[in-house]
């Protein structure tokens, strides 16, 4: 039996927070949250001592025709493992695996229970008002998989704003044609919004396998995506909000051949419907929240050439309730309970597996002078079995007016996926969760002399994960199976430097960063071949970027240059490091009742011949250009 194939199907069978309302520092918060100043940032949204990045609606605009993988690949410290334009994109955060990045949609986790991860290329930024990225583990707040990072995609209502209509049209290289429409309307306590996108691309880019080799053209790489997001907000009384979300999307992609494959006839169809209901009640010293989501997703992988069809689907139902008390101006306390149910179907499962998870969680934050201490805890009952207790302790504060420090200690885990547990052959129902302790410490210096502002941060982290799940061949077995057979130690340093010079009509910003990550396997494994001490595949030791952005009146220009170091691969070769340049230009225009923006993005400006995944070619220089029109009703 070709158990490698079964392994491939299992791993390929591809298939979001609660910063949600929690983390949303929205403009409407002042209306909805009269006690926001008392509570500060919600306890689940961030842990003291941690590092985070966020992109608001304006910052996301240049990426309006892109997906989350492209944003994080260009703007964050995450390594995005991209198989090509429009193809599968997963992440490695702080040396973790793809399943170690938790993705939240308005506070609800979106990972597939079959794979424990999410394909970032299926997350259009057109449906997002804000992206937040927490680095490091925070299982105590978000549960399984929040080990390397937590990425939150948030939707925000725009109460107080007039009704509006927006259209965005983008064309680009290789047959890219992206059309978007957004409508928002409100009256009194009601606010409704609808967004639509349609994207198609041939992705038939030219490439060379090596210098001097003839140019080839990518084949079987077409893409067709359509999505609809419906939002409905109701504020029946001051301090109360009910929100309903429905997100339907379908994606049909061809799977291109590798550089050592003549042809491919494979394709993948993803369908999902995600619905969620959120309720929030803000009282003088307490905020109550409840969220419920029901997600149904389907993945249909076909390869006509080899007469293969692999159909899988899953359902997730999740419900959470939490209360956050402002015990005083310096103390906050949170209690919550989360319950989720999931079920999946695939030919490789003997019967559709189900799982129930129930997790009480709590957090307490104490301000002491300019210092802030926080402790959080989560217990999780998974089908009657308790997972390891997941605490987080965080501390941050000012050492001097210009120098602050932070530290965090946490225990995090990732539960085995359905494929790890039940895929036949190889699923192992006896698997334990991957778990381990993480430590990080950071220093941040900042200043704002005159029109200048600068900041520098240095963060060091260390994380050891035991019971790391690998598909391997054990003694006496003739097939690949999931086993808790290794340990991984990830550690590294992250540096960020920013400098801004601002005037009345213009602003110049320079930024740079360098990440050094060692993520090594600590146990020698024969099959797959993983010597102890070797860097994990697809975890670059070095990543760096430099960025310069300039705003003048309605003009905006940004150039970003990034370097990704060499990575180990799943074969014998080491994938060479590469440098990429990204240039974006935009001009916005405003009139009383309408406005808009014209934009041009040049990607891979220097036409680098590179690969993020071995045997998967990437496009050379290519562009996206478009226009956005916003029409507003009279105030």
């Amino acid at each position: 039996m070709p158990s490698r194939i079964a392994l491939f199907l299992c791993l390929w069978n591809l298939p979001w927070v609660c910063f949600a309302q929690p983390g949303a520092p929205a403009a409407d918060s002042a209306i909805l949250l009269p006690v926001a100043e008392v509570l500060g940032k919600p306890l689940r949204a961030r842990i003291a001592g941690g590092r985070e990045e966020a992109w608001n609606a304006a910052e996301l605009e240049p990426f309006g025709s892109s997906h989350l993988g492209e944003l994080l690949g260009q703007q964050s410290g995450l390594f995005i493992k991209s198989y090509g334009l429009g193809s599968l994109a997963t992440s490695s955060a702080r040396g973790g695996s793809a399943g170690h990045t938790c993705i939240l949609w308005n506070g609800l986790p979106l990972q597939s229970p079959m794979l424990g991860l999410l394909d970032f290329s299926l997350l259009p930024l057109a449906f997002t008002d804000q992206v937040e990225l927490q680095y490091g583990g925070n299982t105590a707040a978000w549960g399984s998989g929040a080990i390397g990072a937590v990425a939150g995609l948030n939707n925000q209502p725009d109460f107080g704003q007039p009704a509006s209509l927006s259209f965005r049209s983008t064309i680009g290289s290789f047959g890219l044609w992206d059309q978007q429409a957004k409508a928002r309307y409100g009256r009194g306590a009601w606010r409704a919004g609808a967004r639509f996108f349609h994207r198609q691309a041939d992705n038939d880019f030219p490439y060379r396998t090596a210098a001097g080799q003839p140019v080839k053209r990518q084949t079987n790489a077409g893409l067709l995506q359509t999505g609809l997001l419906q939002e409905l907000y109701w504020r029946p009384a001051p301090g109360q909000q009910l929100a309903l979300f429905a997100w339907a999307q379908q994606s049909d992609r061809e799977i291109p051949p590798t550089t050592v494959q003549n042809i491919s006839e494979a394709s993948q169809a993803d369908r999902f419907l995600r619905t969620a209901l959120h309720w929030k009640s803000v009282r003088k010293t307490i905020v109550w929240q409840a969220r419920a989501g029901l997600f149904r997703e389907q993945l249909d992988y076909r390869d006509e050439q080899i007469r293969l069809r692999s159909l899988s689907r899953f359902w997730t139902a999740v419900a959470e309730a939490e209360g956050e008390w402002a015990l005083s101006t310096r103390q906050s306390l949170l209690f919550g309970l989360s319950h989720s149910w999931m079920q999946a179907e695939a030919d490789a499962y003997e019967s559709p597996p189900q799982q129930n998870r129930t997790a009480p969680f709590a957090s307490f934050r104490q301000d002491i002078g300019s210092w802030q201490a926080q402790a959080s805890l989560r217990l999780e009952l998974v089908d009657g079995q308790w997972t390891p207790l997941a605490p987080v302790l965080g501390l941050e504060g000012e050492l001097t007016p210009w120098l602050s420090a932070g530290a965090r200690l946490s225990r995090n885990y990732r539960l085995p996926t359905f494929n790890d547990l039940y895929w036949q052959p190889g699923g192992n129902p006896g698997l334990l969760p991957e778990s381990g302790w993480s430590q990080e410490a950071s220093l941040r210096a900042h200043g704002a002399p005159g029109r200048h502002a600068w900041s520098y941060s240095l963060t060091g982290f260390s994380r050891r994960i035991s019971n790391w799940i690998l598909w391997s061949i054990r003694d006496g077995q003739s097939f690949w199976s999931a086993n808790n057979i290794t340990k991984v130690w990830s550690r590294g340093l992250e540096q960020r430097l920013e400098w801004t010079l601002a005037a009345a009509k213009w602003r110049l910003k320079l930024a740079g960063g360098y990440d050094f990550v060692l993520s090594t396997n600590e146990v020698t494994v024969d099959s797959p071949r993983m010597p102890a001490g070797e860097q994990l595949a697809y975890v670059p030791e070095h990543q760096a970027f430099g960025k310069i952005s300039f705003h003048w009146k309605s003009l905006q220009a940004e150039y970003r240059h990034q370097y990704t170091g060499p990575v180990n691969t799943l074969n014998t070769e080491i994938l060479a490091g590469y440098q990429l340049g990204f240039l974006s230009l935009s001009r916005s225009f405003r009139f009383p009742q309408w406005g808009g923006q014209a934009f041009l993005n040049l990607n891979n400006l220097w036409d680098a011949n590179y690969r993020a995944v071995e045997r998967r070619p990437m496009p050379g220089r290519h562009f996206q250009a478009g226009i956005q029109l916003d029409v507003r009703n009279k105030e």
Partner: protein
Amino acid sequence: MEKAISFSFLLMASLSLAAQTTAGFENFGLPAGAFLNGSDGSGGFSSGNAFLPNDYDPDFESWEPWAISATTDTQTPGFLNQYSATPGGGAAGSLTYAVAYCFSGCTINLQGPAAGGLVEGLYLTNSTYAYFSMLNGDPFSKKFGGETGGDPDFFRLTIKKFLNGEPGPDSVDFYLADYRFTDNSQDYIIDGWAYVDLRTLGNADSLWFRLSSSDIGVFGMNTPAYFCMDNLTTTDVTTAAPEPSSAPGCKAFPNPTTGLLRLSGPEPPRWITVHNSQGQLMGRPKAADNAVDLSGLPAGLYFVRLGYGEKRSVLHKVVKTE
């Protein structure tokens, strides 16, 4: 095609020639398009004097290392066509052949009078799955020659023999695909049946096969670990198969015997094997006081081989009575 070719007339003409038997797998009577993967729990397949083990897992519907096939699909790539050979049938125009999934080594046991005898040779070819994978590449495996066509790729089958539990010193390598030539026009992937002479391995009671490829990764060999085999020709030791040597002329008596078989000779045997007339290994008794105890065996004809080293052994045909 089941071939039980008797060369007795040749034996009469020349003592150097021995009776040969060919395992062609036609004895399973498979119609075109059919295959046997061991799902009936048979544990293996006997043809001629060869026994091809099979381990079938009903939970996973997986098998290894041997299956018997009469499938004829030479066009469909991929593992769903895992039972097909590139020629679309067996060797020499026959219908049936054997397919090996050999990720970590696989074995054929020789039985009956062929156990311990010389192995003449066999026919080998690529499975359709491996062939198209090497020719065109697939999502996990490279097309041979790589991106430029110049990679020195290979897909090699190594065959060794075992005799009385000991591996032979020599091996035979057969390249199912070879792209190591400086002149790429000479690169090839086997797509027809090729005869491989195994006489240089010497006497054997089992053959051991191992596949290796230039396309390897952390999960092991990327090239699909399949090959196809047919017409394995063995030599019967009972009819004076060429023994290389100077066996020490040990005698065994009485014959017939009711149980105790006494041995005489200049040195005691290092090992002893007992096969029944169907070629099944009945045991590996130890000699004690220059005698072998066969009392536990039912009455019948047995082949008792006395070994004095790898290339020195003597076979006795012994009748056991009650």
